[in-house]
């Protein structure tokens, strides 16, 4: 471990450092490589989402969309069928259970008060 290269970590961490020492560290090709590798390492640590590992999620949004679309379609078709069936039932009057016939002529006259 080159102790002069610790200044590269200081720089990356936003800590105080001597620009002269950083300049010397970066004048060395190994120091420049180190800076680039540390930046790549930071990128990898910050951007990797562990849940993605082994479970690429590419199909999940599409599956969810298709399921939602299918549920909406079933609801629409079912609702239409039900409404259509009920409107057909309403267009014909129900059959009577029993028939009451009244002979208006034979009703007794109402007596005057």
């Amino acid at each position, binding site marked *: 471990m080159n102790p002069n290269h610790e200044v590269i*970590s200081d720089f990356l*961490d936003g800590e105080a450092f001597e620009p002269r020492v950083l300049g010397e560290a970066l004048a060395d090709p190994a120091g420049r490589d180190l800076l680039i590798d540390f930046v790549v390492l930071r990128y990898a640590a910050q951007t*990797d989402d562990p849940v993605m590992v082994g479970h690429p999620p590419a199909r999940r949004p599409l599956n969810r969309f298709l399921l939602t679309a299918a549920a909406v379609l079933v609801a629409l078709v079912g609702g239409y069928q039900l409404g259509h069936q009920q409107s057909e039932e309403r267009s014909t009057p129900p059959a009577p259970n029993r028939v009451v016939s009244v002979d208006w002529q034979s009703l007794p006259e109402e007596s005057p008060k």
Partner: protein
Amino acid sequence: MTSVADAESLFAQYHDRLLRYLSRAAGEREAGRDLTQEVFLRVSRTAIPASPENQLAGWLFRIARNVALDHLRQRRRRPETDLASVPEGTKDAHQEMAVALKQALATLSDLDRDVFLFREVSGLSREEIATACDLTPDAVRSRLHRARLELRGRLAAPIEALRQQHIRPRGTARAPR
């Protein structure tokens, strides 16, 4: 005992940074979410110290560190995900790095791993890390540099592959909060 409002306020402020650290320490996002909730429960059961913010962050992340260590102790008996579990055809440079980094982090000591994650994933300052890990800021500086060098050595191939790609780190001067 902390009031629920105080705990929620503190939690809202640090939630994302806690989640990032705990997900990475646990190796999976779902476990990270559960552990973040566990931190919230522990915080709500204790008194929040009246400290400057850098010490408060250190205090909170010390609790998070204990939660993560408890989880890892329980989990170390279970097998880890390895490269073979990544479906064929999806192993690009980013996924290779994801798997390799997870494995490389597991080879670090708990302390070096947490120093690295607190800095790179949660964006804690060296002082905050020192409070969280019971170290001096100088010790944090040395450990952080050493952890980076060790990871760099273990991840030479995926780092080289990523050097050929476009990358967009969140920041080089200070990790985001």
